[in-house]
């Protein structure tokens, strides 16, 4: 039987992606359930708080919000992965391999802002931060008046970071949690 801990990709397993793998990673991210989950969460939150109010709190408004979040996610991915290829950054999440709740949580949170370089070292992820900021700004033109400001763009940028952080925490703890629950 294959050891269960071998099924998780850990930080020490890191090998840089080839060009083909970068393309595959991009396409797989776009085609995965991740954009839909992101868009549903985002649209649901905005629907609950009726933001932007011009879109109203009905099914058509939910559709607008869903499309808005989907388009922003797509734009973020294009910017982020394009920049990552150019700068030689790798934003994939690798489980920490650490023990203890604190160190693992810390690793998951800090990983949001860090990317791996080809030699395995970690540094500020300019591609992720740039992609999230770029998408937040680029989505202003189709926003109604109440959410078209730079202030709302900053909030959207923060939300993208928050979502990524949450995703990293789930990726860090989920495999082990699943093993415990399925035992």
């Amino acid at each position, binding site marked *: 039987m*294959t050891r269960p801990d*071998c099924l*998780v990709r850990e930080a020490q397993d890191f*090998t840089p*992606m080839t060009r083909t793998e970068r393309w*595959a990673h991009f396409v797989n991210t776009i085609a995965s359930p991740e954009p839909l989950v992101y868009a549903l969460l985002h649209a649901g939150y905005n629907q609950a708080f009726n933001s932007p109010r011009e879109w109203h709190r009905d099914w058509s408004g939910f559709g607008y919000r869903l499309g808005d979040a989907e388009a922003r996610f797509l734009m973020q991915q294009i910017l982020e992965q394009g920049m990552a290829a150019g700068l030689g950054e790798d934003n994939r999440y690798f489980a920490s391999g650490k023990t203890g709740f604190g160190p693992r949580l810390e690793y998951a949170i800090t990983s949001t802002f860090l990317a791996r370089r*080809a*030699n395995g070292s970690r540094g500020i992820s300019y591609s992720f931060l740039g992609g999230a900021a770029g998408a937040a700004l680029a989505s202003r033109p189709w926003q109604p008046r109440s959410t078209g400001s730079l202030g709302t763009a900053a909030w959207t940028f923060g939300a993208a970071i928050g979502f990524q952080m949450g995703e990293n925490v789930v990726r860090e703890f989920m495999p082990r949690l699943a093993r415990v629950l399925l035992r």
Partner: protein
Amino acid sequence: MKRLAALACLLAAMVAAQAQQANRAIRGPLPRIVWRPPPRMTIQDWTCGPGGCARTPRPPFYFQREDTSGTNAKMYVRDARGRTWDVKFGAPVIAETFAPRFNMALGYLGEYTYFVPEGKVVGAHRLKRCHYFVHDGVFRRARFELRGQKNLVFLKNHAWSWTNNPFLGTPQFAGLKIVIMLLSDWDTKDIRDGEESANVGVFRVPGLNGPELFYGMFDWGAALGRWGGTLRQKKSDCAAFARDTPHFVQGVRGNMVQFGFWGKHGEDIRSGITVEDVRWLLPWLRRVTPLEIRYALKISGATERQAGCWTNSIQDRIRQLEAAAR
């Protein structure tokens, strides 16, 4: 008189042609092999691989040129002994160092590759793809492959096809295909993809009774990851390798063993393998111990965890082969 001279010329030509033919018969065409009985592997064999320890790369390394062909970052360097090395960085490093050792242990073709954990290349400048891996000449984790060796001469324009070669139907050839699937090497391009792209070829090697033509795979950089097409395939990823492991042998239909493998010309690789072929390969596979696999992986640059996981998966796959052969 003229007739006599013409007759003499004709006779001389006939004698010369006869002599040439006889000469050809003595030399004959070189024997072609795809497998040879493997040696009992020693710790030195696992450490230094088919190239042996005398050929280990010796620093300082001098930059020659960057090679921008293919998808990986690679460059040519010369070492202290003046030998030329093809140096690769990134994902294929572990697989390209490990696979030749594993192949050698099983009797298949293995190139002279070595893992160099770190070093410096003098004169490395204006790098394109390699600049991600080489900073101020300093590099980490590289695969060095020796070029220009008279004991292993790559014959240009000799690429062959999985469906058309001299070994079709032999257990040795089926064994090579099993090894490819065992290591999940999805990049099995052959002559049908063009001479330049093919990862199969022929090498002239010394044999017991003179030179031989050794047929085999020579680029294993895509191994030890996840098999599949463009969107699925991965190189050197032990977690992805482990996830594919339960699908390695899918069962036995009639006398044919069914594999889950998928890659370039995947149908040609996984088809035509009989239970007898698996039975032929198994004794050679059993000779390689888990400890040796683990050691070879670590020598090739794998971490303790990676070596453990890959070894575990390879053993699991061998057990599946054993179950199919029963």
